[in-house]
């Protein structure tokens, strides 16, 4: 496997991984809900991780980042860090959304037991969830349509076709009806690194300016932000 630094700051627990050919991967993946290194210290964690893997930034072949949806601040930190590293080192940066990343993890755990069509649910902040419908054929996953944002579990339930298996991480704090919990045995950043490795091997070229955070939630929905006419009324 190529030398890749993968960064997933989109979820409750920050996940980082460094992979190198001929060496076991080095990961930072604290256990438990909502475990982040403090936002000010993530660079120290990355630095320590690289040191532990015996790898310098200059030795990397590529970078990988999860673009969300997820924690807004987390996404910005992950994106700003990896894009800067990519810009300075002229390295390819491969991005993957959080729902497709989760689908890849589900597929890896289930192997041949994976249904041909399924739904993946990723918990967001509070009662918010994100979901995506996937089809699996010949070892490939295809996202049907767009990733969707749901304000509450009822909205989520209503959006998923009847009878479709819905997978959710066993670490999800949400109690989702009819969802199949999946126990992931490795951190998300490792799957992210695999995705980047595949893209690198296929010599996929993605311009840096096309990699942006995926916020999904329309700006201002359900928030305090109001226009002047709201005050007047």
């Amino acid at each position, binding site marked *: 496997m190529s030398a890749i630094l993968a960064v997933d700051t989109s979820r409750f627990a920050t996940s980082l991984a460094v992979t190198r050919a001929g060496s076991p991967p080095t990961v930072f993946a604290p256990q438990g809900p909502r475990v982040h290194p403090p936002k000010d210290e993530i*660079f*120290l964690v990355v630095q320590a991780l690289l040191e532990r893997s015996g790898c310098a*930034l200059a030795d990397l072949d590529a970078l990988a980042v999860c673009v969300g949806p997820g924690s807004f*601040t987390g996404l910005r930190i992950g994106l700003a860090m990896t894009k800067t590293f990519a*810009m*300075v080192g002229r390295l390819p940066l491969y991005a993957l959304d959080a729902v497709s990343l989760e689908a890849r993890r589900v597929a890896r755990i289930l192997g041949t037991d994976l249904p041909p069509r399924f739904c993946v649910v990723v918990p967001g902040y509070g009662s918010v969830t994100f979901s995506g419908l996937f089809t699996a054929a010949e070892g490939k996953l295809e996202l049907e349509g767009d990733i969707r944002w749901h304000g509450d579990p009822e909205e989520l339930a209503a959006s998923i076709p009847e009878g479709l298996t819905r997978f959710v991480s066993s670490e999800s704090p949400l109690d989702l009806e009819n969802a199949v919990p999946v126990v992931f045995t490795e951190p998300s950043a490792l799957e992210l690194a695999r995705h980047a490795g595949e893209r690198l091997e296929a010599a996929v070229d993605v311009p840096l300016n096309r990699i*942006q955070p995926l*916020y999904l939630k329309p700006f201002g929905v359900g928030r305090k932000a109001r226009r*002047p006419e709201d005050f007047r009324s």
Partner: protein
Amino acid sequence: MTLGLGIDTSFDDTAVALVRDGKEILANLTVSQFAEHAEFGGVIPERASRLHVETIFPLLEAVCRDADVALSDVDFIAATHRPGLIGSLLVGVTVGKALAMALDRPLVGINHLEAHVHAALMAEEDLAYPFLALLISGANTLLLDCPNFDVYLRVGATKDDAVGECIDKCGRHLGLAMPAGPALEKLALTGNPKSRRFPRPLKGSPDGDFSFSGLKTAVLYALRDDPDLVAKDVAAALLAAIADVLVTKTLRMAGRLGRDTVVLCGGAAANLQIRRAFDEESEKHGVRVVYPGLALCTDNAAMVAGLGHEKFRRGQLSGLDLAVEAQALFPPL
């Protein structure tokens, strides 16, 4: 020769600059988000953070292109880490940290307000400590005594609205498009400043504090109660009231502290009427008033790189765990 890269994303402007030896500005680019927030009548923090992420990378490339240098030529990275909107500050500081780590260069954390004061030292070769600094902008009205480098003692501050906020909101009452500051200044040029006497809040108080919310209300009530008021006259009278308070209190405090130099800095220091008032009165008091050029008055990253150079030279470096802070409090005099 030392080349510094400055980054400022403290509020709603994304700014990146390259400065040689702390003085020579090779490139200084700022992208304003104002139009993106205009429909809300103010800056929306989440939107500001999102726009910083979109803008900062093309801006980094643009300053390198303008200055004809590579990022690898940079000797240090200076990034504003306080005060400001936390989400916005995080973008600039994260990029600064990533550059420092990837380029193996030192990082210097900068206080945005101190950088505004330092801008005057960049602009005026012969300016030296000690001096009194009046920092006026949309978010701040701050009087600081600066006896030495890196020593900022709070002499006074606004108790409510900042000068720029007062001007912007009065401009809105007059029907001017936001940001109203430059438009109101232009309008006031042809108006009669003596057409109406607006209050001079706290002008007579012995301390260095200011207050502008009452003045803003006075303008609102005047426009409500007198439909015959002429906008240009209101604008001129408003700026006359603001300038009178600022000049009187600043020069009085300079005399009390024995300072013969006043630095006028911050975005609102670009206002022509305020500058003129300082010029006219300072001569009578034997005080020299120094303004950074217009480009260094408003939010910019050249001042960040400039102050960063001084700190870099003195070994005042930051670690990769540099924290962002919404506030920057100065100790009282």
